[in-house]
């Protein structure tokens, strides 16, 4: 029992990341009719916004500390980050410590801007072109973005820790009445799960309770009719794209403490998120979210050593196997509707 609960919990954070990327992908599919292979790159950009912010906070100047000497008797130089100098050592170090959550605030405008630039500069010209062209041009863009990141940050993963307050694990065992320490779950993963639940909830609420959201949902159901009603679809497309970019970016920012980001983290998540979208049913937002969590949890179950002993390597292929089985039995995915992305 403990093992099952643990695996469900373990799957949640990965599932959250899949769900967030798949949510953005589905929004863009459904409203704009564009297949965005660069969506993983947006996730990666978010992660590197967190990395960059931490580096900016750590920018420091050197001073000579007369009170301390090294073993030769020379005065030691001390690196003081500017933020500590300006805000005082206490507040300054707290700011550095909290750089990942603070990066969320920075990432929202940046990712929004990136989304707008991407839509206006590139995607706009591809609405009328075949899906193959959309896939190809966004695939090219994804390569370009990840190579730019590689040129600036190198190929190695960059560890970006969570705030100290969230280091350590929460003991679910005691909470649920099992033995202490039987189910341990890192605090930051809880934060990530909660964060993604909030984001998903916000996106759904936005679509459900605002006029804008109503129009977007109408557009997902029947794009042409909405256009015929005289609604300025173009402006809404930009906003939708920006929202999807922000969601992917925030997913990336908050994921950095869980998996140190490197330049191909976007591609890794993209392939899986596409599978998630297909399993969930293309164009279905609840489908994308549900399939994201489902596949994340399945993946962590498949990584259990007891299961790997029976079926070696199942953890590597479980997601693809599920995708194949789902598509063969329910060709539109778990919650797919007719007529979305079908040629």
């Amino acid at each position, binding site marked *: 029992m403990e093992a099952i609960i643990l695996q469900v919990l373990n799957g949640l954070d990965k599932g959250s990341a899949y769900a967030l990327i798949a949510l953005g992908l589905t929004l863009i599919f459904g409203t704009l009719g564009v297949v965005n292979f660069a969506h993983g790159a947006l996730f990666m950009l978010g992660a590197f916004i967190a990395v960059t912010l931490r580096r900016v906070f750590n920018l420091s100047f050197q001073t000579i500390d007369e009170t301390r000497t090294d073993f030769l008797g020379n005065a030691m130089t001390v690196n003081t980050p500017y933020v500590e100098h300006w805000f005082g050592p206490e507040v300054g170090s707290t700011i550095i410590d909290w750089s990942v959550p603070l990066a969320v605030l920075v990432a929202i405008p940046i990712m929004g801007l990136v989304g707008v630039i991407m839509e206006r500069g590139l995607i706009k*010209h591809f609405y009328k072109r075949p899906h*193959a062209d959309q896939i190809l041009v966004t695939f*090219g863009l994804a*390569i370009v973005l990840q190579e730019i990141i590689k040129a600036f940050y190198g190929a190695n993963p960059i560890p970006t820790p969570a705030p100290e307050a969230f280091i350590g694990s929460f003991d679910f065992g005691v909470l649920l009445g099992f033995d202490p320490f039987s189910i341990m779950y890192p605090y930051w993963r809880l934060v990530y799960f909660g964060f993604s639940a909030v984001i998903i909830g916000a996106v759904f609420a936005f679509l459900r309770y605002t006029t804008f959201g109503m129009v977007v949902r109408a557009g997902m159901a029947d794009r042409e009719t909405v256009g015929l009603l005289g609604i300025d679809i173009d402006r809404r497309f930009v906003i939708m794209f920006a929202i999807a970019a922000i969601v992917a970016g925030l997913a990336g920012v908050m994921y950095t403490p869980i998996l140190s980001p490197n330049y191909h983290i976007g591609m890794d998540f993209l392939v899986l998120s596409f599978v998630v979208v297909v399993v969930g049913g293309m164009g279905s937002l609840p489908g994308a979210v549900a399939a994201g969590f489902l596949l994340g949890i399945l993946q962590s179950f498949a990584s259990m050593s007891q299961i790997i002993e029976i079926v070696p390597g199942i953890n590597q292929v479980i997601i693809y196997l599920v995708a194949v089985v789902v598509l063969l039995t329910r*060709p539109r995915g778990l919650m797919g509707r007719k007529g979305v992305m079908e040629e």
Partner: protein
Amino acid sequence: MLGLNKADARLYLIVVAMLVLAPFLLNPFPEGSGMAQFNAGYPDLMQKLVIFGIFAVGYNILFGLTGYLSFGHAAFLGIGSFSGVWVMKLLTMNVIPALLVAMLVSGVFALAIGYVSLRRSGIYFSILTLAFAQMCYSLAYSVLTPITGGETGLTLSLDDPRILGVSQTETGNIPVPNLFGLDMSAATTIDVGAWNFTFSAGYYFAAVIMGFAFYFSIRLFRSPFGLMLRAIKSNQTRMSYTGLNPRPYTLAAFVISGMYAGLAGGLMVAMDPLAGSERMLWTASGEVVLMTILGGAGTLIGPILGAGVIAYLESIISTIGSTVLYNWFSGLPEGLSTFLVNIIYPFVGSGWHLTLGLVFMLVVIFLPGGIVEGGKRIGGIFRRKNNEPSDTKTAAEPGE
């Protein structure tokens, strides 16, 4: 000639001539000159150009003719490589059985994967092939390590039980791949003035295979089967209304292109008997898509041109380091040369993939018809200068 019409026969002869004369054509700069690093006339690179040409020609049958964008064809390349090495380990170092088995095995895999993937079309198909390829890669990289060598890749070893042939040569080395005794790595060099022209057995063997592969592709393009594939691309619904089921045709096209990929993979190990799972990564599939698109999808010659350009650029550009750049600009004032080096450096050497991505985007945005389309446009400009009416009919024609 050979059952081809006049234009096709001319095109075929041009390609054959290019293949035969490649050691000269690709070696335009004298040895030791500053431009010598742009020479591509050495066997490794020429073989690579031809092998990727075969890969792209086969991919074109699926993507160019049928319009199905597969993002997983590198899987078949990898499967062909692995089965080729296994034939060499178990049976013989002769390359012919390795190639045949590579084609056969990748054909079987293509049949299985195609059967499932082709139940869906459009974006679903792309994602399904991508998922299958990624699955093959994961399996080859980790689970199937006894068969595929996992991280290190699959290589020949000194204790391979080669049924037809010896496990070790008399000197205790691993025997090299051969064609009925003709050593694949054998090469002769002819010096003409400052030029060295290398003729290698391996390259010419690959070139002969390419000749056959290209001939088969032309015949397929011009056959009723090829016409059927084009009909599927232009309007599948209309085709089903006429009472034809597109599925067998698309599946056949998928298997044929998978076998081409397997042949290319088999040729890779015939030239250099080792296979690694990184050959199956989905970015590698992206590269063959780019080759086909860059040259011109759906045209006969396009994929060969595209494969040539990309494989050439990859080999040449990725070897340019910052010192080479400084040498180039050493005649310029220091500030200017540093500026130029800093501008160019991110795009060469290890930054090759950035260039690749940019080329990818630029081609898709501005030249969806690829090099062939570009050539036609340039030709069109000249024709208009001669006051001839612009030839819109050729542009609208499907295929070459």
